[in-house]
């Protein structure tokens, strides 16, 4: 885990997002145990209740599951589900802003498409 925290967003939400990102990137593999609440708390100096709250978000999204007496593990299919959700929000999160910024810069639709093609060709 390579946590980096900012002050603009609640820490528990950042904990949940970072777990999600680590699973999406394959840093945490399916079936693998993730660090415990105490380990994360100690390492990043975050209140254990805050870390737990973040972990519980990931549990409610069924990305990790608690195995009694053992700890938290990445669920099977977690990576696929995260990537599918990211694809669903790709238009809203990236394309809308891309087009908006292109318009601000007077880049035409054709020019933008050409730039996208250039990106793929590289």
């Amino acid at each position, binding site marked *: 885990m390579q946590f980096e*925290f900012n*002050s*603009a967003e*609640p820490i528990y939400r950042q904990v949940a997002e970072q777990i999600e990102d680590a699973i999406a990137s394959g840093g945490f593999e399916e079936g693998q145990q993730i660090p415990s609440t105490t380990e994360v708390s*100690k390492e990043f*100096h975050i209140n254990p209740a805050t870390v737990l709250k973040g972990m519980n978000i990931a549990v409610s999204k069924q990305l990790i599951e608690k195995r009694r007496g053992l700890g938290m593990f990445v669920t099977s299919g977690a990576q696929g589900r995260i990537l599918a959700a990211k694809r669903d929000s790709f238009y809203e999160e990236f394309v809308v802003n891309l087009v908006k910024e292109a318009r601000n810069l007077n880049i035409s639709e054709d020019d933008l498409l050409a730039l996208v093609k250039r990106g793929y060709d590289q």
Partner: protein
Amino acid sequence: MSVLEVNHVSKSFGSNTILQDINLAFEENKIYGLLGRNGAGKSTLLNIMTNRIFPDAGDVKLDSENINDNDTKLGLMYLMSEVNLYSNGTTLKQIISDTELMYGDFDHSFAARLIDEFGIDINQKFGKLSTGYNSIFKLILALCVPVKFVLLDEPVLGLDANHRELFYSELIQSYSDNPRTFIISTHLIEEVANIISDVIVLDQGRIMLDQPVEDVLAKTHSVVGPAKDVERYTKGLNVIGHDTMGTIKANYVYGDLDDRPLPDTVQLSNFDLQKLFIFLTNKYEGSMHSEN
């Protein structure tokens, strides 16, 4: 459920009013940050809470019982502060034994680990300790006594960055293994900002803020954009500070934003505890009321 309550506590030294009608309740198993500028009254408050000095008015109760001269209740609290309660000629080993006698128990295995990690020699005399090791030794005592309320007044005074890191990690480990209440008074706000669950800001003897950190941060808003738009947008809001850079202005708001429409030119984000503390305890023109 244990609760440590401070009720209507006031204290003056001569003509100097240090605390004015302080009301607080500390709940079980939370980590509180007690923040305030130099001379705000933090140490006086912690000393009153542990019966080291007496309030002029008001009282302190633990589980509804007044702590004044109440050995049973005082045995459930430990205050680590800059004041040295031990004689310079006593060895650290002896101080540990004395502390164990006084509190009835002591976590020797945890102490041994801390002594090893911090690299401290317990056969040396207390008076020989440097400022940093003086703090470290007192912290070890505070973490190893069997109490429900641990009060730490400037715990990292004189500690280098490595030892501060180690202390925060061990504090969290100790809290996880054995949940209890910690009340930490410190000037190093950024270092404890994510560790504490609740924040109390004391300013000129009064409580400015007493809330869960999460709720506090949700009410911080920095509003940045062209000065005119920022002024219009923040009109009537609790603006506690500002920055300007030419015609661009940042207004810092503490409190809820209503449904007012946000102009395209203005950007909203949250700001951190240290910034909030500085604004609340700096005298800023106009609205100085805290939003509780």
